[in-house]
């Protein structure tokens, strides 16, 4: 059992610039394959900047690189893109809009550890 947190997804400037270089570009992949976390949460969960974690929601699971973010405790942020799409469920509550923000997520450190090491 990992840590239960709340996930929001959203645009970033880096993701937008990467998108226009091509969704197969290394810039886009890098910009959309990360999860930003609150530094106190990282310390509590013994997760280092640059390490790999698995995120699991009711819709799916992905492995992402952790980055320190300006986020309140309990909140994680994943830029819009292929990884975020795996984590977002299709329920739109009659509006056409899936819940891209405010998703319950389980975060589990992976055995593969720090990608930079």
């Amino acid at each position: 059992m990992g840590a239960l947190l709340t996930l929001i997804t959203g645009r970033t400037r880096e993701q937008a610039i990467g998108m226009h270089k091509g969704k197969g570009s290394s810039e886009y992949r890098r910009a959309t394959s990360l999860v930003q976390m609150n530094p106190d949460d990282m310390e509590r969960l013994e997760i280092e900047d640059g390490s790999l974690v698995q995120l699991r929601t009711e819709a799916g699971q992905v492995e992402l690189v952790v980055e320190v973010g300006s986020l309140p405790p309990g909140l994680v942020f994943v830029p819009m893109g292929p990884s975020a799409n795996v984590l977002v469920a299709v329920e739109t509550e009659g509006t056409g809009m899936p819940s891209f923000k405010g998703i319950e997520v389980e975060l589990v450190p992976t055995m593969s550890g720090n990608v930079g090491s």
Partner: protein
Amino acid sequence: MSAVVEHVACTFCGCVCDDIVVECEGSEIIKARRACAVGRGVLTGRDSVVRRPTVRGREVEWQEAVGEAASILEQADSPLIYGLSSTSIEAQRRAVELADWLGAVIDTTSSVCHGPTGLAMQAVGEATCTLGEVRDRADLIVFWGCNPADSHPRHFGRFSLSPKGALTPNGRKDRTVVVVDVRPTRTSKAADRFFQVNVGTDYEVLSVLRSLVKGRDVQVDTVGGVSVSELRDLADRMKESRYGVAFMGMGLTMSRGRHLNVGELFSLVAELNEYTRFSVIPMRGHGNVAGADQVLTWQSGYPFAVSFARGYPQFGPGEFSAVDMLSRREVDAALVVASDPAAHFPHAAAEHLGRIPTIVLDPAPSVTASCARVVFPTAYYGIDAPGTAYRMDNVPIPLQGIFASGRPTDEQILDQIIEAVK
């Protein structure tokens, strides 16, 4: 041959900045002065090579591709036309005409963007203004659930933060800027006041703010992680402003409450007009997504998620919206114009596009195009072809065609498909 072209409009985001100066060498744009980093990428990174359409990955003549597309759409029982936010209103009109003729469902990227804003508008109305009025008059700017410093990089400089306007001669010094969001962002760093609310509590915070504006007693000390006394200060500041403007984004439309959150903000703005002048403008993402709403509303009466299956337009968010229809596998063919749902939809909805024959009109390669049966590499609107785009404040901006690239426009291809299915 080199040339300099002025007053070029960038169609990346809803700002549609039309003051760009481009330097061209032959058919390439080598510099885009005044554009933001993203706009520069869009303009200078454009693929200038004229490519032929493909059917099942094989290059074919344009007429053959049109015939294949028409055949797919004619044979489908439940075709979906989707996208439209990065093409001209002229092409959007043709897409609606085609949907009407086919009895198709037509939906735009609005449904995963400001669709809930459209629902709120229908429920409570919208007190709004143009970005020119914001620049010239606004002394209080509120950004709620949006981060233009990242998503609309020139919004601050052209309209909302620093420009010197007729009644704001000192630029930034004449404006108070308030940001409400669940996390600090580049936008909140530029603000005078930042209210950090808990995720999913915008509705509650807005409800309390409405009560405070009306002078009612509030029986709690905090709401959504924000102290009521601070919200009381904000309510007073709003009422005392000479001209206030709220910009709102996905923080409201994509989180719990969706259209109800937006409706609460729109109601607050309407009620503030009892004390001062106050407006609200949705931060529209794609360059002509506002135009897609406009055109669909002119043509059908509804802004998105419209079905023509019964021979007349029916509005059905949740029923005729693309994510819902694809995830329920209720679509047996798709025509995608100028968007990339395979890259931006939840995985469980996007994967259905791989099961059905899909037709794509897009100037650039996309994830959707990579799995499509028919692909038309059409003109870049505003660069290879003229047209019209609606800015986020619904002001139509004329687009130049800088090059005669030889690529057909979305409008021309849609015209040919319409002719072929009639």
